[in-house]
């Protein structure tokens, strides 16, 4: 069924000068959708053209509406030569296809050119008329809502969570096509941008279809990634959680929940209607949609998969007696429509859940696999294959299947690990890749958990209702810590104690998870960012040898990262990690591992023991002394940290309970990995405890280094807090002054003969310095909290570059045309760090003021926080006063001018009055630029999200051939990132929104060749466009608010 897309080109402004002779431009616009193109008239000799075109109408399939972007090209008309392109705007019309989201796209868009960046702006209006499609076999999935947010979006209520959806599409990368050798860099970049836009549209449509099949209406936690595999192609893949969401009407109690995640703030989702679902809370809730639209059977996945996966279980869990899992009492087969689709992978990309959803958490499960990317064709031959691939639709069918199979493998692995932990689901699930030449590491990780099946669609989870834990509901503040596995058949040795909170269930001594801290969890003290960093050198190799070398190294890296995390956690006197994200990236001759997490002290878990150092040769006296000093330093640090993070666990009355609490003097020792390799990488994560804690040998220099690195981690300066989760554990009073930053750093290593230790140190220093530099830059915002610190590391490789360099030499005669085969990276290798994070200014009610009138304290501190802004405000007040004085003086002055100008006096006064208002409107109210806040969080503290407008998913390429003139790589990237921000803001504003939540920069690939004065960069960003209002406001005026009003009303206007 077709839909009608209508577009109108209104005007342009700030266009670049395209005609040197007149210093003006003869601009016109081409509007293209699919294969239809319309043109506006040429607006002669103007840099601010007014086209005011008619409505261009495209009648198209809704399938195309989902896949294709609207492409607007601004050109300069030339009578004699070819028209010059000024730039383009791609508009994703997906948000218009959803009835609840935006109804019109209207606003100023930056005109973007991949070579010159932003060149002026264009005002466009876009509307869609969609006809209802009742065709069962349709290929489109209009109306399915997508959210990047990894929690149930505020102002929605989840009626049902259906489960995991995934899809991937593969295509040839235009950059590597044969034709790229003869086309301009601009054409090549544009082809790439367009292709990726098409692919993500297609991907989204396909996922939408799956969701509809499952009976859902939305995808939450939608995570889309690109794998730029170079010559073997381009993979766009996505995962998400299918849900059925109900909109919460604005008057409901949900409104109070959209605010800052204060501990007592109730989550809007799931909640309120639950009691209404009559009947006892049976583990399997009747599927409401099953009668109306039976979920179709997906034939693609064989049912035998289920059994084969349990076979893997057996091999992975050495314990006996647990090899068969209790089947649900309602045999699935008895249902008319079995749902193998969602039952296959009980994964959830969500990281935070409504209260009561998460029953128990097992621990982190992760799996990695090293794959060799198969080369599709030899570009040198320029054979028929690449020829054919110019048509992107004719992608070879076998390719996605290979990639699918790879991921399938990993997911099975994850699933079996979760089972080994006695869990039936994986939450906080994510997937990632790291590619270096033809080697690719696929990683997946998540947190094994038991979920409350009430919220689940039946068949989604594979659990036994006989499980005693469901009959015995645990208190919400500690329930999730309780072990999901059987105490007698533990998947790995761990020290279990009775829960320190409820005293009824067993808890492990430490808990690692990839999810956010549940809002109801009881926490002692404050949290902090904990990072483990690791470098491992490896030999240069090719193909299979390389892959083997990497896969041999991986377990060690994983183990060592884990050990580091564990030690740092103990050093901070904490016992749980949230938001754990381990990234391993592969380079030509090294592997980099970076694990970040937020450490917390969970009240329910036992206090962590200290770290004990032991020498190997007890006889040596000097050695003994050395050990003692180190031990003392460690103990001091622990004590200091205890104070810093205000960890004062309540004293326990141990005798009264008589539970087997371990003696408080018990300490776990510093772990050191020395031998023990295991072929099963992911098992290591779980099995650290299996290895008996090592007595650290002090004459081992590595160990000394390790301790040093442990102790060199500087705590953040006073007033700063950092975490990588959405909210900072232990801080509850947030202000709405938020700021989002992106930082990129590339670090070049100068000498090639580095040792592992040396590299580790450099890497650690790099990360530490980066954090320090953030603290420095943000010093004026104290007290503030860096939230959602999201670190990404990459090692751009050198070999690949050489290969391309050879390619260059081979085609020497074509050099003129070759401008798009470029980028020879000189030097050795460099770290490439990409950070995107948010600063939330937090007002901390210090202990001393937390008593009476804490509100008052907050307010007064608030002034402190904004003292720079406040002073500016006073300034402007003074300014206002002085302008009034000036006005008075002017009056007086005009009077003094005497009789000569009696006629003029009144006039001039009127004039000055008018111009003053004109001026003020110009500098304050008159600007048409909407303030758009951006945040990687799923909420804005102190601000209520009232409407989700749709997903923002944009891909940009920027290239330059005048790197030096643009201020080097830094200047180039700086302006590019600023441009990307500007374009995201413009799109959100055009949708009528005023904020982007769950914003993330997924990809940032930079290639440079300073010798040739060239650089290229690719950036992919995504997020959810929303309309939000201040908590106090009732009307959604914010969407209309321009810079002036916002900032007049709030002196924190900085966002």
């Amino acid at each position, binding site marked *: 069924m077709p839909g009608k897309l209508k577009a109108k080109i209104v005007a342009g402004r700030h266009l670049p000068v395209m005609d040197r002779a007149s210093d003006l431009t003869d601009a016109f616009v081409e509007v293209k959708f699919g294969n239809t193109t319309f043109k506006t008239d040429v607006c002669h000799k103007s840099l601010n053209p007014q086209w005011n075109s008619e409505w261009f109408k495209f009648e198209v399939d809704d399938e195309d509406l989902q896949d294709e972007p609207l492409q607007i090209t601004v050109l300069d008309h030339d009578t004699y030569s070819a028209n010059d392109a000024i730039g383009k705007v791609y508009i994703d019309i997906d948000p218009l296809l959803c009835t609840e989201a935006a109804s019109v796209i209207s606003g*100023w868009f*930056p005109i973007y050119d991949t070579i010159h960046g932003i060149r002026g702006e264009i005002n466009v209006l876009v509307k869609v008329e969609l006809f209802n499609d009742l065709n069962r076999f349709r290929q489109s999935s209009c109306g399915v809502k997508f959210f990047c947010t990894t929690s149930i979006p505020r102002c929605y209520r989840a009626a049902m969570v259906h489960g995991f959806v995934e899809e991937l599409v593969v295509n040839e990368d235009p950059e590597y096509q044969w034709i790229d050798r003869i086309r301009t860099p601009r054409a090549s970049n544009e082809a790439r941008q367009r292709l990726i836009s098409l692919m993500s549209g297609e991907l989204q449509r396909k996922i939408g279809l799956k969701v509809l099949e499952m009976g859902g209406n939305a995808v939450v936690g939608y995570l889309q990634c690109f794998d730029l595999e170079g010559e073997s192609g381009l993979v766009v893949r996505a995962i998400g959680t299918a849900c059925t969401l109900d909109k919460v009407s604005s008057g409901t109690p949900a409104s109070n929940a959209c605010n800052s995640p204060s501990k007592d703030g109730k989550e809007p989702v799931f909640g309120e209607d639950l009691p209404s679902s009559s009947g006892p809370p049976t583990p399997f809730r009747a599927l409401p949609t099953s009668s109306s639209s039976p979920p179709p059977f997906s034939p693609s996945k064989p049912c035998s998969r289920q059994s084969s996966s349990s076979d893997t279980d057996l091999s992975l869990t050495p314990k006996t007696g647990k090899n068969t899992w209790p089947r649900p009492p309602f045999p699935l087969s008895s249902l008319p429509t079995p749902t193998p689709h969602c039952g296959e992978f009980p994964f959830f990309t969500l990281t935070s859940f409504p209260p009561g959803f998460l029953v128990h958490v097992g621990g982190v499960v992760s799996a990695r696999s090293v794959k060799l990317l198969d080369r599709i064709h030899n570009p040198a031959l320029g054979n028929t294959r690449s020829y054919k691939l110019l048509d992107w639709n004719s992608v070879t069918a076998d390719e996605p299947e290979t990639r699918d199979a790879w991921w399938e493998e990993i997911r099975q692995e994850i699933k079996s690990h979760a089972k080994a932990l006695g869990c039936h689901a994986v939450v906080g699930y994510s997937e990632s890749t790291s590619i270096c030449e033809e080697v690719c590491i696929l990683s997946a990780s998540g947190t094994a958990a038991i979920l409350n099946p009430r919220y689940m669609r039946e068949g989604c989870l594979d659990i036994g209702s006989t499980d005693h834990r469901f009959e015995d509901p645990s208190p919400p503040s500690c329930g999730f810590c309780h072990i999901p596995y059987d105490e007698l058949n533990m998947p790995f040795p761990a020290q279990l104690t009775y829960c320190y909170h409820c005293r009824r269930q067993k808890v492990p001594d430490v808990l690692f998870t990839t999810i956010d801290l549940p809002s109801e969890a009881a926490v002692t003290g404050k949290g902090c960012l904990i990072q483990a960093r690791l470098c491992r050198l490896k030999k240069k190799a090719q193909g299979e040898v390389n892959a083997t070398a990497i896969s041999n190294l991986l377990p060690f890296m994983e183990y060592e990262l884990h050990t580091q995390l564990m030690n740092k956690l103990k050093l901070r006197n904490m016992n749980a990690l949230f938001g754990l994200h381990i990234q391993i990236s592969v380079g030509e001759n090294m592997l980099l591992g970076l694990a970040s997490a937020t450490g917390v002290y969970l009240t329910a878990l036992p206090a962590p023991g200290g770290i004990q150092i032991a020498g190997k040769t007890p006889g040596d006296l000097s050695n003994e002394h050395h050990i003692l000093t180190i031990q003392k330093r460690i103990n001091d640090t622990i004590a200091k940290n205890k104070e810093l993070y205000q960890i004062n666990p309540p004293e326990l009355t141990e005798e009264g309970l008589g539970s087997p609490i371990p003696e408080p003097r018990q300490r776990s020792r510093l772990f050191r990995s020395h031998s023990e390799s295991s072929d099963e990488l992911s098992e290591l994560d779980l099995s650290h405890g299996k290895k008996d804690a090592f007595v650290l040998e002090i004459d081992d220099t590595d160990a000394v280094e390790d301790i040093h690195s442990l102790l060199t981690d500087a705590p953040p*300066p006073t007033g700063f807090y950092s975490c990588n989760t959405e909210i900072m554990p232990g801080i509850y009073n947030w202000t709405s002054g938020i*700021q*989002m*930053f*992106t*930082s*990129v*750093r*590339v*670090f*070049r*290593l*100068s000498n090639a003969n580095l040792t592992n230790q040396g590299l580790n140190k450099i890497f650690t220093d790099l990360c530490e*310095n980066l954090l*320090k*530099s*953030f603290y*420095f*830059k943000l010093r004026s915002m104290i007290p503030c909290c860096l939230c959602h610190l999201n670190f990404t590391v990459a090692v751009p490789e050198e070999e690949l570059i050489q290969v391309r360099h050879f390619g260059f030499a081979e085609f020497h005669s074509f050099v003129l045309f070759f401008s798009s085969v470029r980028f020879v990276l000189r030097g050795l290798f*460099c770290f490439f760090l990409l950070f995107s994070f948010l600063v939330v200014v937090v007002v901390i009610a210090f202990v001393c003021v937390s008593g009476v009138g804490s509100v008052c304290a907050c307010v007064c501190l608030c002034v402190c926080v904004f003292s720079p802004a406040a002073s*500016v405000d006073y*300034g402007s007040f003074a*300014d206002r006063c*002085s302008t009034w004085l*000036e006005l008075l003086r002017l009056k007086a002055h005009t009077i003094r*001018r*005497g009789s*000569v100008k009696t006629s*003029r006096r009144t006039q*001039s006064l009127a004039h000055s009055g008018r*111009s003053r208002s*004109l*001026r003020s409107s*110009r*500098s*304050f109210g*008159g600007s*048409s*630029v909407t303030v*758009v806040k*951006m945040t990687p969080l799923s909420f804005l503290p102190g601000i209520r999200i009232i409407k989700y407008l749709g997903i923002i998913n944009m891909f940009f390429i920027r290239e330059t051939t005048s790197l030096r003139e643009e*201020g080097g*790589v*830094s*200047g180039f*990237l*700086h302006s590019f990132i*600023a*441009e990307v*921000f*500007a374009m995201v*803001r413009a799109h959100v504003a055009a949708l009528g929104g005023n904020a982007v939540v769950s914003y993330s920069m997924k990809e940032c690939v*930079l290639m440079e060749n300073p010798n040739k004065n060239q650089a290229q960069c690719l950036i992919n960003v995504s997020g959810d466009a929303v309309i939000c209002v201040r908590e106090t406001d009732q009307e959604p005026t914010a969407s209309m608010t321009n*810079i002036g009003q916002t*900032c007049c009303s709030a002196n924190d*206007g*900085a*966002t």
Partner: protein
Amino acid sequence: MAVELDVFVGNTTIMDEEVYQLWLDGYTVNDAVKVRMEGGVLDECEASADVLLSDTMDQYRTFQMCERLLHSPAKLANQLLFQIPPHRQTVLIERYYAFDDAFVREVLGKKLSKGTKKDLDDISAKTGVTLKSCRRQFDNFKRVFKVVEELKGPLVENIRQHFLLSDKLARDYAAIVFFTNNRFETGKRKLQYLTFQDFAFCAGQLINNWTVGAVDNMVEDMDVDLDKEFLQELKELKILITDKDLLDQHKSLVCTALRGKTKAFNEMEANFKNLSRGLVNIAAKLTNTKDVRDFFIDLVEKFIEPCRSDRWTAADMKLYLTHYTNSAHILDTFKHQVVWDRYMGVIKSCIFKMYHD
């Protein structure tokens, strides 16, 4: 080992006002880092010099990218590239267009040509303002001059609207434009004691009273060009010194009024004819462009210097000029009262302002 690339970009552009000032003052990144280190930023928070360098680089890059927009401040408000809160925008613009008094004294009244721009390094050496900063200030003058040149309406208002400047700064720019347009001589040694603010005040007086705009506020260049008709009429004032009777009558009137009121009475009486001749001659010559240029130097030579050598106080000066102006009204044969008032009003306030050490 080296940091190849280091950028830090915020959704809202953040700027450190201190660094902005250093950038405006033309410091290089390294010098700025030194200044900041001496300023003790590092002591406030534990940070190393690297951190400071990287921060300074970031800020400098941001400013460089913003500079293009600052050239037409109205654009800053509706551009999309940088999200800057309005109060920040105001500060950015105001600071960018601020200038050093020492520098402006050097170029005031000079033609804003390429030739002058070439001499900026000399000015830089003389005033101690960095060359980069000199260039920015010079370009600002030139930019404002070019834009305002072709506009109708009051000069100060035009500047304020187009460059979104504060009233004070707009007035200063109006003075600069006025001086540049009329090419007033300000560089002579005798004028060195005068500050920019003295001249700016005088310019304000001239703009408000002597220009075409003082009579008609909708003509082009109304506040920039002096009223030709008025200058012509000034010739009529010559009668005050050519007609001997009138001169004596004027003198006696003034002396009667001053007698006993000041210590410098004798000098006043002795010098009356000379001083009166000086002032009236200045008025009569203003039809020549050359003499307009020398307006200030003439005022100093013909009036201020003689008075100063006779040790008049500022109060003496005020007294003398008031009576000198008012007595002319009583002269029954003197018919040019309106022109006289228009002329003397400005002269009086200019001399008051200029009569200091």
